[in-house]
Structures are given as structure tokens and as C-alpha cells.
């Protein structure tokens, strides 16, 4: 009987080794591709070393350093360290900082608890209840009263203020946005007219002009006795602005619902309110969730504009901290730090919205 010895396995040909194939396909597949690879490498060589040098290799990480001892070749991260409190809390009094921390702590607790009861039938009640009650608690903690020392809003600042402005804008603009979206879709001519004019007007002008209007024109409309807080004016402006954008997003959702849903609701004898609340809105809101998150991301970016009407959000703190004579000329560090913080927040939000988009997408692929 013939014996056939097993042949020794050969190593794969050079052209099929994974890394080599990958390199060949992705970087060196054609003359143009090779040229592009070199262009890319040159770009990286051009940009990366200076950035790394400034932020890391030439930077001074000695957190006790001052402006003079830090040097000018690289970043001086001691600047961030010594102003960190200001970046987070603004000018909030030192001994009251626990109130801000408690406020942030409650948000975290609420979110954690909410994710624990995902399966519960009371989840909707819980979410709506939190949205109604939490703002009251947060306002009480931040502003004070009822035994807590009152901290005027001109002391609020930094990341705290950024979060407050964004959160109020989001929460307040949402119901208003639904109203205007319904108004724009309404068959009542006058209501529709008013909604269209409002939405298109606000969307046609820059936020900064609306903030100017809220800060200098709005007080003229109220009787002289009413004292308008600067922060409140900004919040009104932001809310008016965001309402129009949310309304357009929700209108998109409303238009995407098949006509049959409206007709079926009418045929079942539901009243307008029942039809809207039970049939139309749940579907419309569900479709628009990714876009709503997108619109919130835009709002979060836009909150930085409040610095132009004189509020001290995180970005404005950079100016405030560097105008202090002991930290003159450290704007770059400040801007980079703020940019990193905001970037992390915005990037996670946009990842989340991408995730939602795939989750809610019922389209067949």
C-alpha cells in the first residue's frame, strides 16, 4: 500500500500576509494612492509634532508653578489647576459649592435609578415626574432661599452656568416646540399663520440678535417695576430661539406619520386632544428623537454665545481668568481646556444620537 506522507504546510505567499495585504490595499494600491499616502504622512509630520510639543513635551505639568516659572515654549497646565474651581463653578461662594455638587449628584442619581427601572411600568411616570420636580430642586439649591443663603445669579458661572442654560433651554423649549409644530400643521388659518411667522422669523436671524433683543429690548416691554435678571433674559432668548428649531424637527415627525393614522383616530371618534396625545404625538416624537438630540447638540454649542451679553459661561471664564494679572497671556491653555471639555460632552452626545438613529430606524436594509 502506498504511503503518502503529509506535505509540510507552506507559509502563505508574501502577497497574502494580512498586514501586507492590508497595507497594499489601503495605502499603496496605485501610483495615486502611494502619492496620497506620502501627502498624508507629510501632513501628520507637519501638524502632530508642534501640537504634541506644546501640549505635552514642552509643557509644564508642575501644578504649583506660576506664570513666570512656567516658561513660554509649552502649555502651562498649572493655570488650569489654579483656576479649576472657577471653570466649574464660576464665582459661586466657596463655602456653598456643596450645593452645586449636590445638584449634579442628584442628576447622576436620577439617571442611574432611571436605567435600573428600565422594565418597570412606572418608568414613564418616573421620567415625567423627574422633569417636573427636579428643576424646582435644582433652582432651590443653586439660588437658595428657605434657610439656604441666597446666591445671586451674577455669581453663577463656568460649566455650571453652561449646563443650566442648556438644560433650561432644552426643557422649556420642548413643550413650546410641540405647540408651535402642531400650530404649523393646524387647519386653523390664524394659528397656522402665527406659528409659521414665528418659526421662520426666529430661524432667519442669528441667535446673537435674539439674545440682544432679550437683553435690551425685552425689558422695555414690561413695566418699570419688574426687575429682569440678566440670566433670566438670556434664558428667555435661548428658549425662544430653541423653540423654533424644535418645532421644525417635530413638524418633520408629524409629516412622516401616514395619513391613515389621523383618519383612523378620527374614525374611532377620538377628540382632537385624545387624537393628538394618544395617537399622533407618541409616533411623531419617536420618529424625531434622533433629530431632537441633534438639535440639543446644536443648542449646547450655542450656549457659549451668552458670553456676548455678559454672562460668565465656561468660555467667558477663560477671559476672566487671563485678565487676572497673575495669569496674563494664558488664553491658549484656557481655550484648549474648555474645548476639550465641551468636545467630550458634544462627541458623546453625537455618538448617542447615532445610536438612537440606528435603534429607531425601522427601515429595511
Amino acid at each position, binding site marked *: 500500500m502506498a504511503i503518502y506522507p503529509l506535505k509540510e504546510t507552506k507559509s502563505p505567499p508574501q502577497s497574502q500576509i494580512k498586514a501586507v495585504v492590508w497595507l497594499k490595499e*489601503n*495605502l499603496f*494600491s496605485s501610483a495615486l*494612492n502611494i502619492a*496620497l*499616502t506620502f*501627502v*498624508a*504622512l507629510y*501632513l*501628520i509630520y507637519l501638524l502632530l509634532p508642534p501640537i504634541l510639543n506644546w501640549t505635552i513635551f514642552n509643557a509644564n505639568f508642575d501644578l504649583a508653578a506660576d506664570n513666570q516659572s512656567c516658561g513660554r515654549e509649552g502649555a502651562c497646565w498649572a493655570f488650569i489647576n489654579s483656576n479649576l474651581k472657577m471653570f466649574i463653578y464660576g464665582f459661586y461662594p466657596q463655602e456653598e459649592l456643596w450645593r452645586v455638587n449636590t445638584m449634579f449628584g442628584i442628576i447622576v442619581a436620577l439617571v442611574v435609578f432611571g436605567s435600573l427601572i428600565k422594565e418597570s411600568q412606572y418608568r414613564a411616570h418616573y421620567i415625567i415626574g423627574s422633569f417636573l420636580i427636579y428643576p424646582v430642586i435644582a433652582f432651590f439649591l443653586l439660588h437658595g432661599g428657605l434657610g439656604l443663603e441666597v446666591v445671586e445669579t451674577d455669581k453663577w458661572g463656568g460649566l455650571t452656568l453652561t449646563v443650566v442654560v442648556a438644560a433650561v433651554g432644552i426643557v422649556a423649549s420642548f413643550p413650546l416646540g410641540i405647540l408651535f409644530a402642531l400650530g404649523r400643521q393646524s*387647519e*386653523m*388659518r*390664524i*394659528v397656522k399663520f*402665527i406659528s409659521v411667522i414665528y418659526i421662520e*422669523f426666529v*430661524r*432667519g*436671524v*442669528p*441667535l*446673537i*440678535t435674539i439674545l*440682544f*433683543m432679550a437683553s*435690551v*429690548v425685552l*425689558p*422695555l*416691554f*414690561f*413695566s*418699570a417695576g419688574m426687575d429682569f435678571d440678566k440670566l433670566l433674559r438670556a434664558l428667555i432668548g435661548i428658549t425662544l430661539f430653541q423653540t423654533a428649531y424644535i418645532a421644525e424637527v417635530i413638524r418633520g415627525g408629524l409629516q412622516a406619520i401616514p395619513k391613515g393614522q389621523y383618519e383612523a383616530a378620527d374614525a374611532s371618534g377620538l377628540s382632537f386632544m385624545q387624537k393628538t396625545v394618544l395617537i399622533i404625538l407618541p409616533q411623531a416624537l419617536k420618529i424625531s428623537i434622533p433629530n431632537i438630540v441633534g438639535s440639543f447638540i446644536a443648542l449646547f*454649542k*450655542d450656549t*457659549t*454665545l451668552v*458670553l*456676548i451679553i455678559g454672562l460668565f459661561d465656561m*468660555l467667558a471664564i*477663560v477671559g476672566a481668568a487671563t485678565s487676572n494679572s497673575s495669569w496674563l*497671556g494664558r*488664553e*491658549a491653555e484656557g*481655550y*484648549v481646556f*474648555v*474645548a476639550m471639555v*465641551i*468636545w467630550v460632552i*458634544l*462627541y458623546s452626545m*453625537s455618538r448617542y444620537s447615532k445610536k438612537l438613529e440606528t435603534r429607531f430606524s425601522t427601515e429595511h436594509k
Partner: protein
Amino acid sequence: MFTKLKSLLYNNEIRAILFQVLAVVVIAYFAYQAFDNMMLNIEQRGIRSGFGFLSDEAGFAVNDNFFLEYSPASTNLQAFYVGIVNTLIVAITGIFSASIIGLIIGISRLSSNYLIRKIATVYIEIFRNIPILLQILFWYSIALNTFPSARNSINFFDSIFLNSRGLYLPKLIAGTELYLVLASFVIGLVGYIFIKKRSDKKHDETGVKTNTIPHFLALVLLLPIVAYFTFGVQLEYPALKGFNFRGGVDLSIEFFALAFSLSIYTATYIAEAIRSGVESVDKGQKEAAAALGLKSSWAMRLVILPQALRVAIPPIINQYLNLTKNSSLAAAVGYTELVTIFSGTVLNVVGQAIEIVMLTMLVYLTISLVISLVLNIFNKKMQIKGR
């Protein structure tokens, strides 16, 4: 009688009318209250009303001024016009460069080269998620701190200077020579369009394609250049006098920071629009083009791009509008455009908040309306025609 009333109340049409009347009454009431308070407040604070202030002397200087006659002795109305022109100039500069950067980045994202693709992705993810105002302030402070002082300006051929105050370019002096050059440009352009139309017509009728690129180069580029040198246009060069440059065209560093930030920020959105446009074209289209024997560059130009642009251009036009609106953030660095001049300086001097903010908003509204008009026309033209 009562049941009749009740049934009337439950009638949908009558309800709608009642509801609308109620809405109008409530709004009218608040509007009246607001107006009443406003009149009272204005009277108490001794603020003027009306648009008389427009013909008052402005009394302030403006950093950037391109075409218009303006001096502190000019009126507020003239300052308003300078503001509008400056807004438009920074917007147009921004739109132009954002489109170019966005196009490059968008194509890079679709590239088959891994490194190029990744660099484009990183660029988009970084600059899209940083607020535009932060970017403006950042580049402004970088430019202020790293560009040299006027005495040590970066010098290009003794005619272009860059320093921490701005960029100084030679200025074309208006005169017969300049008009002749402009005229030759227009003639070249018209001539080229005529030739192009004729060659397209020939292509449609006979299928013979003529290459019109040489005609383009000769008529649109070469002719004005030749005209420029034959007629000899006068130039005014910037020159260092005392602490600063005089003469020539001067672009302030604020303009620079603003236009630069607006371009790199908006470019991320344009790149994404281009990418999603190309990706929206069905794979079958590419395969069909290949099956017909079109080579890939033709397939791109004749099959993919026309369909991709239909999807990509509306969001791009929207981004142009956003860029124009974002140019109002100039107020943070002090580039003298509409908001800085009008809602800033003039408002501080005159104090007539309502009129001034309304006029400012009106300008932006007009720009928005024009852009959405363009968008509508485009959409109508690009609609797939039903059979």
C-alpha cells in the same frame, strides 16, 4: 335652546373659530400691554423713538472698510451700510473657502487611502464638536500672540505684509485701465460661454465632443492677464508709516480670525453633506455604469455626481446660510460687521434698542429669504420628473 347651544359648542368648525378668536384676543392684549409699557419706559428714560437717528453723525471710526466712503463724520445710516457690506464680504469669503476645504475633506473621507480617510474623519470630528465662538476666540488669540508686530511684518515681495494687526495687500486703483481689464474679463467670459454652448449643441446633435478647456484658459484666464499687462493698471502698495501700514487694502486680523474659523467649522458640515450625497447614490448605479463600459472617472462625472449633488446641494446651501448667520459672532472679536457696528457701537451711542435690533434682524431675514429662494429654485429644477 341650551342643547342647541351645546351642540354648537361641540361643532368642530365653530370651535376652531372660537379658539382662533381667543388666540387673537390674547395675543392682541399682550401686544397692547407690551406696547403701552414700552411707550412709558421710553418716555421715562428719555429715549428718542423713530428712525431719525439714522441721519445723525456716527462719530466713530471703523476698522475694516472696503468700498464705501466712510469717516467718523458720516451718518449712522452710512455706518449701517458699511456693516452690511462687511457682513457680506466675510460671508462670501467664508463660503468660498469653506466650500473648497469642505470639498477636499468630503472627497478625502471617501478616499480608498486609509490615512487620508482617517485624517479627514479626525478633522471633521474635532472641528464640528467645538463651538464656533470658541474657535473664533482661539484663532484670534493665536494670531494676536504669534504673528509679528508691524515693524517685523512677514513680507512677501515688498507688496504683501502680514502682522498681528492684519494682512496688507496692494490695491488696484480705479481708472480707465482697470475698467478695460474688467471689460476684457467680461468679454472673455461671454465668448467662452458662447463657444461652450455651441460645442454642447454640436455634441448633442452629432456626438462629436470638442475639448473646450484650451478655449477656457485662453479666454477667461489669459485674456485678462494680457490686458492687465498691456494696459498697465496702477497699484497702490501698502507702506510702513510710523507704527502701522498705510495705503493698499487692509484686512484686519479680526477679519482673518473670523473668516478662517467660519471656513474650517462650516467645511466639516459641507464635507459631511458631500459624503452623504455620494453615499446616497444606489450601488446599482455604479454597477450599471461599469456594465455599460464607462471608465470609473466617467462613471463618477456622468452618473454618480449628478445624482449625488441633487442630495448634497440643499444641505450645503443651508450651511451657507448658517455661515452667514454665524458671521454675526464677529461681535466677540470686534470685526466691524453689522452686529458689531450697529447692535454694538450705534446702540451704545443712540440707545434706541428696538429700532436698532429690528433693523439688524431685518437684514439677516432678507439674506435668509434670498438664500431659501435660491434653494427653492434649485429644488424645483432638480426634482426628478415623474413619467
